[in-house]
């Protein structure tokens, strides 16, 4: 048995709708596969121990931590990163609301925030502000103070539920 056979794994998965085949070190995490092997740098590394949420991605429909997921777990999986979600237009309303409400400053947490927000709205329709705050508590943001992020998510949840006049506050100079 050769060295390369022992410590590397072959992987087939779908990333952003494209089929991908690659061979990676067995200890490789999803976030490193994306950033280093596939050049998808939209997902960021913040703490590498699952606390900060910067690397949150969508795998088989669920929000997961890219830094806690081993590449070896991904055989046959469907992975969506911020790049694919953007191109597919599936979070265009969330992205627009984040920009309009200034729910990002440095932008480093934003791809992870958007993934978590997408999962929340799809699971919970129109969550309360408290529910949004609780759900988003796995995503650290040092810049915004969170209120604008909560506002943006609330706005989109209401819009998607067909509320023509969202009740979420505009935020500025409230």
């Amino acid at each position, binding site marked *: 048995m050769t060295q390369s056979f022992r410590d590397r794994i072959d992987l087939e998965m779908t990333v952003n709708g494209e089929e991908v085949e690659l061979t990676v*070190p067995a200890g490789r995490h999803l976030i490193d596969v994306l*950033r280093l092997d596939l050049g*998808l*740098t*939209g*997902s*960021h*590394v*913040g*703490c*590498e*121990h699952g*606390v*900060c949420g*910067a690397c949150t991605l969508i795998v088989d429909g669920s929000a997961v931590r890219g830094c806690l997921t081993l590449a070896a777990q991904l055989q046959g999986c469907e992975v969506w*990163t*911020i*790049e694919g979600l*953007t191109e597919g237009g599936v979070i265009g309303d969330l*992205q627009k609301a*984040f*920009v*309009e409400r*200034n729910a*990002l*400053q*440095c*932008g*480093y*947490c*934003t*791809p992870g925030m*958007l993934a978590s927000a997408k999962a929340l709205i799809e699971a919970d329709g129109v969550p309360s*502000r408290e529910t*949004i*705050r*609780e759900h*988003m*508590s*796995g*995503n*650290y*943001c*040092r*810049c*915004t*103070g*969170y*209120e*604008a*992020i*909560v506002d943006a998510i609330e706005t989109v949840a209401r819009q998607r539920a067909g509320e023509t006049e969202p009740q979420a506050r505009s*935020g*500025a*100079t*409230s």
Partner: protein
Amino acid sequence: MTIRFDDPNRPNSYIGRTVPRPNAGRLVAGRGRYVDDITLPRMVHVAFVRSPHAHARIGAIETGGAEALKGVLRVFTGRDLAEVCTPWEGKLLHLEGMKTPPQHPLALDRACWVGEPVVAVVGRTRADAEAGAALVEIDFGPLPAVTDIRTALDADTPVLHEALGDNLCFRKANEKGEVDRIFAEAHKVVEASFKTARHTGVTLEPRVILVDWNSGDGEMTAHVSNQAPHMLQVLLAGHLDIPESRVRVVCGDVGGSFGLKVHVYPDEVATAAIAKIMERPVKFTSDRMEAFISDIHARDHEATGRVALDETGKILGFDVDDWTGIGPYSIYPRTSAVEGLQVTNLIGGPYAFDHYRCRTSVVFQNKGICAQYRAVGHPVAVAITEGLVDKAAAEMGFDPIEIRRRNLVADDAYPLTTAAGLKLEGLSHHKSLDALVEAMDYAALRAEQKALREKGIHRGIGIASFIELTNPSPFMYGIGGARISAQDGCTVRMDPDGSVVALTGITEQGQGTEAIMAQIVAEAVGVSPQMVRIVTGDTRVTPFGGGTWASRGAGIGGEAALQAGRAVRGQALEVAASLLQAKAGDLDIRDGIIVDADTGEERLALSEVGRIVYFRGDTLPKGLPRELMQTRHFITSNYPYAFTNGVQASYVEVDTETGFVTLLKHWCVEDCGRIINPLLVDEQIRGGIVQGIGAALFEETCYDEEGQLLNGTMADYLVPMSGEMPDMIIRHVETPTEESELGAKGAGEAGTAGAPAAVMNAINDAIRPLGGAVTHMPFTPERILRALGTITD
């Protein structure tokens, strides 16, 4: 021609409006380009072996194991790098008596804190470099560690740097009036001790630098997550012996900074030195553990303070003794004395009184280096001041609003110089307090608090007034010999189609620099903000400037942009006047069209001016000035700093069973002068408030007595998350500075300056009837239960 800021219907009225940030669309699409996203050909990675000891002599270093590992390319010790890089000392000449020893990129003989870099290992991949670092063996000889602040100067405490004689880095006393007599004779003297815990910035993007050395060009290029590219350019050039013009520092997208990324870090300089030696791109990406042990810390202050009042509740004077531990070295080049120095300036800042004494003692210890972090010194000074004022109010039977009304400097008393010696141009404490009382419906809130108290629910309201230092002049660093620029510049260039590129020395770390610069330049030239492209953070092209720190971007960089934009406008109008056979003074530029200033009649597209100047200059009169690219620099000169003011309020509920604090709501009224983009200012303040709340309730880098860091992960070091944070009401008063045409002061630090004190006062308002008080941050459930007497062991 001056801009009529008071007329919202003036042409091109972009200053003062909420317009979207031009770079936000890229960031929400995951198309940011942070330094770790950059991969260069031939790039290698460096990892550092860091001291596991707080204080230890460095003996033999065995690198053979690392060098033998596949994927490891080179190993460097401190002596290797000392051959190509000179050491530095974080001193400022105007801080009299300041001491600090030379610091090298890698420790030479002694390691002085847990986390100090000692050996650098270069590998093909980051994993290779880290695996190699794990195989380096260093024979450390542990030495006694200095960790306690108050005993650092005691005779039986070991001296950390023998050559300095003692553990005192800097001491400064600021005194005016007759403090001893006033306190002896005062109707009322209130005293308390305060602690602000050592904590750190926790930028979501850790520090990262990628340096390339092109020996053919003799040029170094550093891509770095930093706030002050020109500062870094000058310092890397100096210490690595390269002409400044051949060091290019590029600060692209920066994932949070807050002052943490305005310093010179030994591991980053080491990376640059290694790139020069290896003649190839070298990347260093800090991991989270490294961030906790090697990023700057801040706020490690302990103080005793007292305030004297007369029988009417009028404050007569403050007397504060502040101590702070800054680690083993003063930070380069800003020094670690500035936080303590600011405390000596800012105590009592909002109030009118005559007698003042504040001393700070800045001591060395074997912990991480403390340095400038968002709102330098302000949270400490505001907590001491407002803690004492509230305690006095409670003991004398005054409502917290009433005692402030009696003591805040009158809004018509400016300009004035405070007892601490600060020159203040114009503040609005009373207007701001009135706006706060109205915004929070103070009387109703007090009634609610009282009603709930009868049901055993303990809520508290805390108020904190503050002043904030912004727009610093060279009095902050330049006069001390530091090569840190207080001026800033902007180049505005009109392209042939009438669109505009503006290059600014101010940098963007998420504040919205690109947005406000686009607004200012758009209004100055007379085009829409969408037609303005802003370039920041590249020393090869941007005018020499200071970068973004100390809330200087809008006030200093913004004024330079305004003047450069107006200069381009003037040139475009000169050309248009020649083409139209009109007087330039009779013309205006509105939304990219040259118009008749009086009637608004459209005369000529700006794109036509561009076409003529760039492609058919032969048709213009010889000698007609036509430079559609103009640079202006701005520096403040009337005041050393532009102070702003504000007041915050916090409404909390304390669970007296568990000691948990629930933040119910938070308010801030702030006066940052001319507001350029209301939404961005509000969100700066909200973000700053939450950072201050972190200091009040959660954040502390904990060391044991041997100087070991106990909480080096994000699972152990608590930061504010969305679940516990309150909604925040933000209001504004606008008192523009007359120092500039723009009139903008800074807004970046107000939230962080006042929030800890507001939360502290709110908690104490809640638990005071139960006989407790807390003044040592962070206010953990345990500390609150101890204050209540529930825990006594």
